[in-house]
């Protein structure tokens, strides 16, 4: 592994005048590697040499180590007259940890989304009429950002208001094959989500339910383009 490293000048000293046999260069490289790794700040050659056994050549060991780390995820870099191991610059992006926090959509957003899903294509005014309260710009923007709704065709009514429709990623998120699969009012009622009792003085209830279900089949054509 280390045989391809040719010895630079200045290496001859360790063979000549050391009292003890210096460890082989591979060992010296290991030593330098461990020291640079464990140090809390850059280490000078002098420091390294002082800690290494007699006869070692810290400079050469660092040169070998530097070469070994070329192109790796970390690099041996010179900092002033000392050496340190640092992350390769192109991998800086790994030094951030993305924390994803999941939050529940607000009630306003869920209701708006539900209306769009059940009534699409639907204008903002229609959403407001159904909800009985105004819909804030922020709520629509949030749903657009989530890519759960998108703009549909403009309505051929005064002001040519934009309409909203749900997107394929909406279907994906809610596990629906098409918006036709949304449970109808009858099913909501069967699931206990709606009061069973027909509301007093409202002959429209049953009619609405049929209507909502009848509406659904046509919606899919909105996903064109």
């Amino acid at each position, binding site marked *: 592994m280390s045989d391809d490293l040719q010895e630079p000048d200045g290496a001859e000293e360790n063979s000549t005048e050391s009292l003890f046999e210096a460890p082989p260069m591979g060992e010296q490289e290991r030593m330098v590697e461990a020291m640079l790794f464990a140090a809390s700040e850059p280490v000078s050659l002098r420091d390294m040499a002082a800690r290494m056994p007699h006869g070692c050549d810290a400079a050469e060991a660092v040169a070998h180590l530097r070469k070994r780390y070329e192109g790796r995820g970390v690099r041996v870099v010179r900092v002033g007259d000392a050496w340190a191991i640092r992350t390769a610059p192109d991998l800086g992006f790994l030094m951030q940890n993305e924390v994803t926090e999941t939050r529940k*959509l607000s009630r306003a957003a869920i*209701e708006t989304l*539900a209306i769009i899903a059940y009534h699409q294509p639907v204008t903002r005014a229609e959403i407001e009429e159904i909800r009985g309260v105004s819909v804030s710009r922020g709520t629509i923007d949030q749903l657009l950002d989530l890519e759960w709704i998108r703009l549909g065709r403009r309505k051929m009514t005064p002001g040519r208001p934009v309409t909203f429709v749900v997107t394929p990623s909406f279907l994906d*998120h809610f596990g629906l094959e098409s918006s036709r699969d949304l449970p109808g009012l009858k099913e909501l009622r069967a*699931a206990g989500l709606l009061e069973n009792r027909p*509301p007093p003085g409202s002959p429209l209830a049953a009619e609405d339910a049929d209507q909502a279900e009848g509406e659904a089949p046509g919606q899919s054509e909105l996903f064109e383009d």
Partner: protein
Amino acid sequence: MDEDSFTPDTMSVADRLAAEALIVDVDGFEGPLDLLLTLSRTQKVDLRKISILQLAQQYLAFVEKAKALRLELAADYLVMAAWLAYLKSRLLLPPDPSEEGPSAEDLAAHLAFQLERLQAMRDVAARLMGRDRLGQNFFARGEVESVARVKRITWDASLLDLMQGYARIRTRDEFRPFVMDRESVYTMEQALETMRGMIGFAGSWTDLTRYLPPGWDSDPKRRRSATAATFAATLQLVKEGRLELRQSETFAPIELRRREEDES
């Protein structure tokens, strides 16, 4: 104690000192089991083959000496002494078949097990502490790079949320004290549609009420809705530059006509 004569040469000076220290330094022991374990070492046998009888005698002798020296012995040492005295008597006497409970051999075996287990824990503790350790023999990275935390928020809703949300709206509709009677609501969109078709014919000033749709002028509720919607529609058409409006005075009839400038 005759174990000195049993293996005279294996007992070092340190062991002798330890054996003497035994007698005075009760605090040096981690409880009666520790003391028993220390005493058992003088038997120089496998802990599984240890003579509990002999061990009990050693322990009782130790307690006697301590008493003679008026050393305060912790209660658990005395409890152990009483128990060992009982065990010793049981071990010495032939088993009494009428007696209930575990046999003396079982009790002795359990004590041997406890001693062996404690010794085993001590051995592995020593092995554990003898390992190469982080910060002593091997080291972690010295120059730690901090990892920035980037917070990303994802929004979530389930199909049930959606269904409940929709059900909530529908339920609210149904129980709203003022139920909107859609039969009697004429929308601006409807009015516009009608108006668009008709303004071409509005060359001269005409009363707004003439544009109310047929069938909407008798019932006051319907009339009000239709008037409002039609008026709103005319405003829209004025804005688009297709109509002109006028009213001679407050509450006077509103008149409208087609706007002509574009064509001239």
